[in-house]
């Protein structure tokens, strides 16, 4: 019992010391929160694949009422903004080349005539596909507009309504905003960046400054030192997640569908797994520079292959297999399911178990590494 108390007291002291190290320096205090804040706002506003006032140019060589009607539909969509009106086909290339517009809508002469004659009439859409995703999205929007135009045209020319209407509805994100997806992923990813960096640096800094030896001559055992190093990082990681969670709900008004208890249970398991990885890095690194570089080299694939930037299902099979050992993959999946879909703890067990496995592998492994470097 006494031994247990002494153990707890030593760990508590170490935790206090670690927290003081993190919080004492004003620069590092600022760095704990400002980058997370900036990045979540940046991602929230910038990371959107949704079109907004996309610039386009119009080349209308028909000028008939039907063409005007179609153009009104394009302008009225609120998605596109006309920045140029062209007169000649030869004007198309320069304006697209200079990236002034995302696309040129070309209505050929005899548009009205052909349409009235009951022909299937083409409207040419020239897309700047240097960014193929944006181009694809624009084509999708325009396809919808043309479908609506056809419906109206058919109705006003005695052809009845459209033969087939597809009623589209989206669960969990009714307006299909990329931001909802991004912000929920950030809750996991940003705290991972911070936790990894903090844990990796904490030991490396002591080693570089020579204070690690001092720690070793205290009555603390290596295991206690490790716990003392992990708990503050876990705490900081969770605080960061909370910060982003607050931005997502209060600033961006993304409704939280699930329970906080489930969310934090998942996040705790995730942060522990990250701390395990961070400690392993810091056991391997000789100095701070190495610790930082190793963290960074590891972080890039972890983030990129987490499903945040592009879906895991789009990856080739071999890459998909690699993501099995990526904690960020489970965390993002978990946060999204809890945050957007509102599922309970029972459903996300499939994500929590792998995280716990990663933690139970990395933590003893880094303890072993410490021992073998220290002794």
């Amino acid at each position: 019992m006494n031994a247990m108390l002494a153990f707890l007291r030593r760990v508590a002291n170490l935790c206090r010391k670690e927290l003081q190290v993190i919080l004492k320096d004003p620069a590092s205090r600022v760095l704990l929160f400002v980058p997370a804040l900036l990045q979540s706002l940046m991602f929230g506003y910038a990371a959107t694949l949704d079109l907004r006032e996309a610039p386009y140019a119009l080349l209308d060589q028909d000028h008939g009422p039907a063409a005007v009607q179609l153009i009104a539909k394009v302008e009225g969509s609120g998605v596109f903004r006309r920045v140029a009106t062209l007169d000649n086909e030869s004007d198309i290339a320069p304006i697209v080349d200079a990236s002034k517009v995302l696309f040129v809508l070309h209505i050929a002469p005899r548009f009205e005539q052909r349409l009235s004659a009951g022909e299937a009439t083409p409207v040419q859409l020239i897309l700047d596909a240097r960014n193929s995703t944006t181009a694809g999205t624009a084509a999708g929007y325009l396809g919808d507009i043309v479908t609506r135009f056809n419906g109206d045209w058919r109705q006003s020319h005695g052809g009845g309504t459209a033969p087939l209407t597809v009623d589209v509805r989206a669960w969990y994100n009714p307006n299909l905003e990329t931001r909802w997806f991004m912000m929920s992923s950030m809750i996991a990813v940003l705290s991972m960046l911070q936790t990894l960096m903090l844990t990796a640096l904490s030991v490396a800094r002591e080693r570089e400054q020579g204070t690690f030896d001092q720690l070793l001559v205290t009555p603390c055992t290596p295991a206690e030192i490790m716990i003392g190093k992990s708990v503050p990082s876990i705490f900081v990681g969770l605080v960061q997640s909370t910060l982003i969670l607050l931005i997502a709900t209060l600033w961006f008004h993304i409704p939280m569908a699930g329970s906080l208890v489930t969310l934090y249970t998942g996040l705790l398991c995730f942060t522990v797994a990250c701390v395990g990885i961070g400690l392993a890095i810091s056991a391997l690194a000789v100095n701070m520079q190495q610790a930082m570089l190793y963290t960074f080299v590891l972080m890039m694939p972890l983030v990129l292959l987490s499903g945040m930037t592009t879906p895991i299902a789009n990856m080739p099979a071999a890459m998909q297999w690699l993501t099995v050992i990526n904690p960020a993959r489970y965390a993002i999946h978990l946060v999204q399911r809890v945050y957007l879909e509102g599922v309970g703890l029972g459903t996300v067990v499939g994500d929590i178990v792998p995280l716990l496995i990663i933690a139970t592998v990395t933590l003893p492994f880094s303890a072993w590494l410490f021992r073998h470097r220290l002794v």
Partner: protein
Amino acid sequence: MNGGFWRRLLALTRKEVKQLLRDRSNLMMGIALPAVLILIFGYGLSFDVKNAPVAVVMEDHSVTANDMIAGLRLSPYLAPTVVNSMHDAERLMLDRKVDAILRLPSDFSRRLGQGDAHAQLILHGSDANTARTIAGYVQSALAQSTVLQGDRSGASPGATVGSVYLEQRLWFNEANTSTWFLVPGLIVLITTLVGAFLTALVMAREWERGTLEALFVTPVRPLEILLAKIIPYFGVGMIGLLMCLLAARFLFDVPIYGSLWLILLVSVFYLFVALGIGLLISAVTKNQFTASQLALVTSFMPALMLSGFIYDLRNMPLAVQVVGRILPATHYMEVLKSLFLAGNLWPVILKNCVILIGYAVVVLAAARLKTRKLIE
């Protein structure tokens, strides 16, 4: 005098190269990370949806309805599975086994004959972009089937009424694959990493540990110290760049329409900007941790998020756009994408080159001003 400059520069450069080669974490960052990133970006990341699982609920078992589904099956982007009831489909969706549900109601074929059919499409919206892409594919597959259906039944519902269709041309990316625009972006990312992040870190370490002070007592000048730092990291940056170019050409078959020399030239300009930013950050912070965080926040994250790499700048709110336009990475990105996918568009090249050269001069001069032989 002049001879002294070259001798000192040579000696310092040799020292820097040794220092760079001695620590394998530097090489990991300079060589291994670009290689890993090339593989991830080339093979791993893709916005192109393929074989998306869609549950199909057929409440109408007519031939017409079956024909519609056959149309879905033909699409390489969709993998439809027919389920028995809406309840089963919702189950699959809740478990995220499917990305969408398509429901053809029991009066589907009857109303299609009357030209007034409805089909319901429910999307799993968590991943908004994928959801929207799938919606597009399902709608166009159904529209196509509808037209075929009309042809087959002899009298299309709108036979006498004209309709408009989009004739789509994808300029600069005929293959419509995201790899084509991801790979040029990757070059920007790697150059920024090596130039700004690695250099800031290495130089800040010297400030922090006081090894620069040791150099200050020697006859070397600040300019020589900076040049000696720039030369080896410039080399590392160029190796990363060449790896990217080779991978783009031979691994991923990304076309390079512009001139290779121009790509190299603008890359050299941008590399100088990035190196300057790295040196400036380290001279201002003089602390490894702060320098690394600052380099991440001011150069790497914006290069990833705000340069038009993945997310089109034009979709962002105006304030964010303005920030994006100020960044040197945005200009490098613009000229690289054009050189890769569009060719030698001189107005784009000249404008961005001038901006990049301007940035390089300003940051390098600022770094020189901040690097003084003074101990604070």
